[in-house]
């Protein structure tokens, strides 16, 4: 009996120290567990790829950090960060005042316009007047949801909320919503698919509102982790300066995704 206990204690000690060692080495980088091309999407074998995965690899290599990509449900990704299930968020998360109350962000690493797509053949502008009497779909916990709530729902337009961008796009194709608001790049990627080509087209960018949409997308971090934040900011700046950023961005985009 005593011997068993001793063995168990040793085993537990090894397990604990192993756990600590592993977590000290590899930082878990959370991405939303859903395809979000061209930024993050699993390929047929389940391996994650896309522009943001390449960015993660470049930044982590530059900052000499070991990073592991960890898929997390989007609507619980901030609680996952604050409860230390993951250590960073690199999932096209926009830097907003609302999120800065709970978490911290690195400097922005890209910024793209916000757009609206809609049913083909129905002509309207992505403004409160143009959308009057229509239904617009957005993904929950996104800047687009905040924007739609502030500008569209307040004007009496019905806003439907979806757990994933995929479901919103599917419901647009199925005619249940008249429009979908999201990141312009992600929407154009959807419009390039067979389903998207058939059903919908691009209606335009929404009017600016920096207070809601924020200055761009950054790495989400826990508050108080200034050392990691400084490392990441330096790495983002370094890959911008040494051309790595532009090299892999060219594979995905024909314009400068970093923005102004």
């Amino acid at each position, binding site marked *: 009996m005593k011997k068993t206990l001793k063995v168990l204690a040793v085993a537990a000690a090894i397990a604990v120290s192993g756990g600590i060692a592993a977590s000290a080495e590899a930082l878990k980088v959370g991405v939303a567990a859903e395809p979000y091309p061209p930024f993050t999407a699993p390929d047929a074998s389940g391996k994650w790829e896309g522009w943001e995965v390449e960015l993660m690899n470049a930044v982590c290599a530059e900052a000499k950090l070991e990073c592991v990509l960890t898929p997390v449900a989007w*609507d*619980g990704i901030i609680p996952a960060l604050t409860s230390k299930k993951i250590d960073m968020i690199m999932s096209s998360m926009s830097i907003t005042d609302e999120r800065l109350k709970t978490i911290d962000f690195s400097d922005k690493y890209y910024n793209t316009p916000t757009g609206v797509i809609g049913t083909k053949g129905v002509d309207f502008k992505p403004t409160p007047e143009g959308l009057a009497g229509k239904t617009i779909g957005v993904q929950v*916990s996104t800047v687009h949801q905040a924007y739609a709530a502030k500008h569209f729902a307040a004007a009496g337009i019905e806003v439907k909320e979806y757990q994933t961008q995929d479901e919103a796009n599917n*419901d647009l194709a*199925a*005619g249940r919503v008249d429009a979908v608001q999201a990141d312009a790049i992600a929407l154009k990627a959807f419009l390039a698919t067979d389903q998207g080509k058939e059903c919908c087209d691009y209606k335009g960018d929404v009017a600016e509102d920096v207070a809601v949409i924020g200055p761009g997308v950054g790495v989400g971090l826990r508050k108080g982790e200034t050392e990691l934040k400084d490392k990441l900011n330096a790495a983002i700046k370094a890959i911008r300066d040494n051309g790595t950023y532009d090299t892999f961005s060219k594979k995905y985009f024909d314009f400068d995704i970093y923005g102004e």
Partner: protein
Amino acid sequence: MTDQTTHAVAYTPEDLPTARSFFQPHRIVMMLVFAAFVICVAVFMRWDWLPRYLPRLGWGILVSLVMLFSTSILGFLLAVPIGLAQVTGPWFFKLPAKVFCTVVRGTPLLLQLWLLYYGLGSLFPQFPAIRQSFLWPYLREAWPYGVAALTISFAAYEGEVMRGAFAGVPAGELEAAKAYGMSRWTMFRRIWLPRAIHRALPTLNGEAVLQLKSTPLVATITVVDVYAVISKVRQETFLTYEPLLLLALIYMCLTGILVVAFRTFENRIPTRGA
């Protein structure tokens, strides 16, 4: 035999807790522990978000209740013929009823809901006839699919319960009704159906509670019920435990009300020999 079976399902006044039995020592200890837990939760956790969400929470509870009652009533109305068909019907009624119950009870409700909403629902707009029809404004909403899926599921489970209940009504009572010269319809209306429902009531009580706890699934197809409102609180406040504990409390209260209502209803039916 007849009276024993009915006796077993009816609650007698002695079974119900009296005011005095609440104040036994072990019950007092349990109540104190629970009260301490509630106070700790109320004092040490963050509840400042609650007033902002109260109107939406009330609306969400209403949506959940409408979902529960509409689908339970519709489902039960379907369950009676399904149960009856399985007991007395000729094979061409019996077989489809049996297959319906087996298929629906053999697949997850979430799967049925998504097959209806993302499957069937996204086929509709491909037909211009449907898209232009007067039904389209309803078909493009999410709630009809939620109601349909929950109704079908309830009908299948209760169809099976009602089959047992119809089969369990003693043959002697039906023969006595026949001897009185009742027509088949009168016999069904006066004897068979009321006796079967009475026998099935305790089971139906449990099934209604299960149905209540199936309703949050409609949140996955954009119906904003109380579960969806709580999810929204979680997403907007980044809190995990507080909204979920409140949700648990809400469902417990609704379940409690449902159980008490059913029990009152059961006790109002006079049982001979009870």
